[in-house]
């Protein structure tokens, strides 16, 4: 809440100027807008916020960005054991492993000839905007733990997610919205579950948890007034609670009470600001068409448009999950659906951010929790199993070098072999762009200096920074 709003809010309850001043000072620590930690940022940030387009389920790198002619040659033949021996296998345990060539065609686009598959015609238009990392690695081969690694840096439950870390470190720039917003969409194969753990605050304070915004029902749980209660009545109620709490606080003199009042004020503001944010029907027709969004449809396209609105309003970490990329079978069919649902909207978001001048300080990350095997799996038509030893993601905006590819997998797309980028390196890089040195960004928990990037060595991928 800005000082002006705060004043008018307080004046309705007849608070004196001394109390008012005290309250304005309190703002820093109150539950409303969170401030940056002392000493942060560590260096000048390139990005102010992150939009993580989370392709949940694990999109195939072999049908998106990682073109492997050799794999096409081996199509249908046994997968050479030199690649698979002693490797963990998920659903293909105990089965004959056959190579599966790309199930689509690739072409080169942009100034640097980026390889992009035919499933992603709009990505082709962004070839000069994105930096494709083709040498990703993760630790986990199944969805739930791999999501947990991608979001929290470890497979052990209960650690804070990246969005929580970022908000904890940098604070929020929004007066009336949470600093970490999550939205989901689905269209495609029976989706894998996604746990709230992925946007939990772990051992960080509760106000840094990701808040899910829903396209159906209350946009935030319990946001709507109870039936039969008008906004004015709700306002009266919040005022009464505040007045009574403050009155009581003359006796108990507890600093918690001011924090609590700030939380109630923020809650009350959210009751207006969130529905206002979520209502895209007032967007110009041109904008809706650009994204292919229909108000209230809960699509990835609508979520992308909302992501832009959230970015404009100062939300620090925005995460959009599209849930249906788990293509064990009928990969072509489902790639068509998933890419159809996301490809154009992603391009629209990029275009929109660019022309509003927001791309420069917005870091976009695109990718899933892992990739898919070069081996065939056939639940229905041809598909691929989970794969953790090599996959692709891309980054754009926020000080990332545009129009390049980085790293490589081997000739069959199995192992990352060149310029490997582990998930924790990705985390280090994202934090770096936000002005945070991941090594110095720690919180004491259970006797350890916990950090997002964990205990294994990790590095900022300097090669992809502009």
């Amino acid at each position: 809440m800005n000082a002006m709003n705060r004043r008018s809010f307080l004046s309705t309850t007849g608070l004196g100027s001394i109390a008012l001043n005290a309250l304005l000072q309190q703002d820093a620590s109150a539950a409303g807008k969170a401030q940056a930690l002392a000493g942060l940022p560590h260096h000048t940030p390139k990005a102010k916020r992150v939009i993580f387009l989370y392709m949940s389920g694990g999109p195939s790198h072999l049908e998106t960005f990682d073109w492997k002619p050799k794999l096409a040659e081996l199509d249908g033949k046994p997968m050479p054991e030199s690649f698979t021996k002693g490797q963990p296998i998920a659903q293909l345990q105990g089965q004959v492993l056959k190579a599966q060539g790309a199930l689509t065609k690739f072409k080169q686009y942009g100034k640097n000839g980026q390889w992009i598959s035919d499933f992603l015609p709009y990505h082709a238009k962004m070839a000069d905007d994105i930096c494709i990392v083709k040498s990703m690695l993760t630790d986990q081969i199944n969805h739930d733990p791999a999501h947990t690694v991608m979001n929290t840096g470890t497979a052990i439950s209960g650690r804070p997610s990246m969005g929580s870390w970022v908000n904890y470190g940098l604070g929020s720039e929004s007066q009336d919205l949470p600093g970490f917003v999550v939205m989901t969409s689905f269209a495609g194969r029976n989706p894998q579950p996604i746990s709230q753990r992925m946007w939990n605050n772990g051992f960080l304070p509760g106000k840094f948890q990701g808040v899910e915004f829903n396209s159906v029902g209350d946009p935030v749980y319990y946001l709507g007034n109870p039936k039969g209660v008008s906004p004015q009545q709700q306002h009266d109620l919040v005022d009464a609670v505040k007045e009574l709490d403050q009155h009581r606080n003359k006796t108990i003199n507890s600093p918690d009470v001011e924090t609590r009042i700030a939380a109630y004020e923020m809650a009350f503001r959210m009751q207006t600001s969130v529905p206002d944010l979520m209502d895209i029907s007032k967007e110009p027709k041109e904008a809706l068409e650009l994204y292919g969004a229909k108000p209230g449809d809960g699509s990835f396209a609508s979520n992308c448009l909302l992501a832009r609105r959230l970015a404009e309003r100062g939300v620090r970490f925005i995460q959009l999950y599209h849930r249906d990329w788990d293509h064990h079978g009928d990969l072509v069919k489902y790639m068509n659906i998933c890419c159809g649902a996301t490809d154009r909207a992603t391009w629209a978001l990029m275009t929109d951010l660019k022309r509003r001048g927001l791309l420069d300080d917005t870091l976009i990350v695109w990718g899933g929790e892992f990739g898919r095997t070069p081996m065939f799996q056939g639940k229905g038509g041809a598909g691929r199993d989970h794969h953790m030893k090599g996959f692709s993601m891309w980054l754009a905006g926020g000080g990332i070098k545009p129009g390049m590819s980085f790293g490589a997998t081997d000739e069959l797309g199995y192992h990352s072999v060149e310029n490997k980028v582990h998930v924790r390196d990705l985390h280090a890089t994202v934090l770096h762009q936000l002005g945070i040195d991941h090594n110095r960004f720690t919180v004491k928990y259970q006797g350890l200096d916990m950090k997002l990037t964990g205990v294994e060595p990790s590095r900022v991928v300097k090669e992809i920074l502009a």
Partner: protein
Amino acid sequence: MMKPISLLLFVAATSLAAEPAIDFNRDVRPILSDKCFACHGPDEKHRAAKLRLDVEKDAQRAIKVEFLDRISSKDETERMPPKKANKPLTAKEIATLQRWVAEGAKWSAHWAYVTPKKTIEPHVKSAWPINWIDRFLYVRMRQEKVEPSSDANAVTLIRRLYFDLTGLPPSPADIATFKDSVLSTQFSVLVDKLLASEHFGERMAMYWLDLVRYADTVGYHGDQDHHASPYRDYVIDAFNLNLRFDRFTREQLAGDLLPESGVDQKIATCYNRLLQTSHEGGVQAKEYLAIYAADRVRNVSAVWMGATVGCAQCHNHKFDPYTAKDFYALSAFFADVDEEKHLRGGGADAIPTKRAPEIPVLIRKDRLVYEDSQRRLDRAKKSLAEAIEGRKKGIDGTNEQKRKVDMAYLEEIELQTTTIKALETQIAYYKMRIRPIMVTQAVMPRTTRILPRGNWLDETGEVVQPAIPAFLGKIPGDKRSTRLDLANWLTDSKNGVGGLTARVFVNRLWYLFFGVGLSKSLEDFGGQGEPPVHPELLDNLAIEFIESGWDVKHMVKLIVSSRAYRQSSLATQELREKDPENRLYARQSSFRLPAESIRDNALAVSGLLVLEVGGSSAKPYQPAGFYRHLNFPKREYASDKDVKQWRRGVYVHWQRQYLHPMLRAFDAPTREECTAQRPRSNTPLAALVLLNDPTFIECARVFGQRILGWAAKSDEERVTLSFREATSRNPDDAERGVLLKLLNASRTRYKADAKAAQDMVAIGQSPVAKALDVVELAAWTSVCRAVLNLNEVVTRE
């Protein structure tokens, strides 16, 4: 490279001479642990310069050579810790280390790993102390030049005791009974009454279930329901029966191995099955065996030993003397827990899923009635058969005699038939209450290997047998040690770590009743944890716990009977500044109620609360679509349509991936891992819950109904009474004024819009009292909403 350091020592020693002597465990070890042990500690793989500072002999040698020079060197390349460690020593820390060396570098073993030592309680010339706890605290307060706070007023104290011991508010009648006597003669009576209440067990279970990560769902991937709820009832029952803590420990870890293993002991072994499990499509059995083993080691060490042994999964612990071998040897105790059944496809994408082995059980309370009914049924059946037989036989005698006897038989037959029918109905009812539960059944132990760097694919590691951490000794005997041996060791104060276990537990009790532990790090008693601020007190409490025969209720009573407990939580500005975290305990703490109690309190004040103890999990109202991201199978949440709707928070269905948003908003943990201490946040999401969650709206409305049901009274009187119901005190004029204003504004609005009033009172499934004027009810509901949102109402003072 000896350097002259005596001058430096002299300066350090004299300039700080006024301060109390350095205590190694309190002042020095935490610095060494945090700043030095990572490279000069127990983990030999990462040990630098072959130097250890965690072992006395080695450390003393280093101190004689270059220790002080290195830590205070101006030369960046010389200075320790090195820059890249990102752990610089503060000037104060350097000064402490210098003083420590100057005072002779006295060393003592880590406080948590030595046997608790009894200290004679100090003599205190003051009337303030009530029991010996107070004498320890008082001496320290005086050293720090603070005075204890005055006693809380009677009403606050009664409320505190009710919330702390039962998690529920006192009723106005309870307040009336004890108000005038709690501070004099009836304190002990009240405490005994609360300890004897069945709700004591529920309150303690709220905490214990966080520690052992009890939940109603599997946690990973599909997060299906699993069968665990009888375990929750067992825990409640155990605290109510005051099951001795050593026995409680044995039953949970190894109830199946006890010679007298009955149903309750088998239910208790669900402890070993509470961890998160998965049967996601691509799960590899070996990988998950490793994950489960690690989970159990993390939990058992955190719950009983306050240790973070989980850190030693990939490498020797960096701060504590736990080795990777210790980690795997501890996990080997659980290598006989049957895991195969669900990992080999026994699990199911169903709600509930199956996690064999499971057995059907009745909880103790139900079982007693059931078994008694069964016995009575057998007796009744026997009597019936005898009566039928007797009647058939008849007697020799006059017709009149025959008729009389026949009548008597008939009556008997009728009586027994009725009895049988009633008993059969009862038995049928209890049969419906039979629930399956996951239990521990020992199988042939799996081979346990050290997994190099935690890598489950690497089978080159040494095979290990079940063993306790090596630095803590050895379980005697040649036989393979069992879970029962582990449980015995954990609670054996002579030959095991009973002293540590006792310290860990009493510290947590202290936290529950003072808001902050004697050691703040409830979950870590290792080198990185906080040494207790009152080590003698903690030790004496631990010894008392052991000597009492691990009597939990005794310890609770002892702590809450102290003068310190009774103090007011209102602090002077001076005290607050001097002791912001309340480590001197010169006041009580005031803190927000735990999530479950916030729910219970609103239900209790409204009159809706259902107080049945035990039973299957309850499903309160929850926003539609909240589970929509769950799958395998997809599921709809169906809230309870009967009185289960209003059960206590401790019974609420605990969905790990999507914990009920009300519980989550008030910091209840997801129970994926051990939680010894919940944060107490204050967020907009929590405000939205109290403002808009239908449970709280319904509570407000039913509370409103009660208010309107009171014999005709003025608005003023009603406001006063409603405020008093929720806070146990009368509002002052200003407070009454705010609520009356809200009442009148609301009344005006609802008079103008009867439809809105109708909508408002229709929230919740509890029926609306027909006789009441809907406009009035809606207006009073607004008042009650305000009252239930007050900070005071959700705070334990």
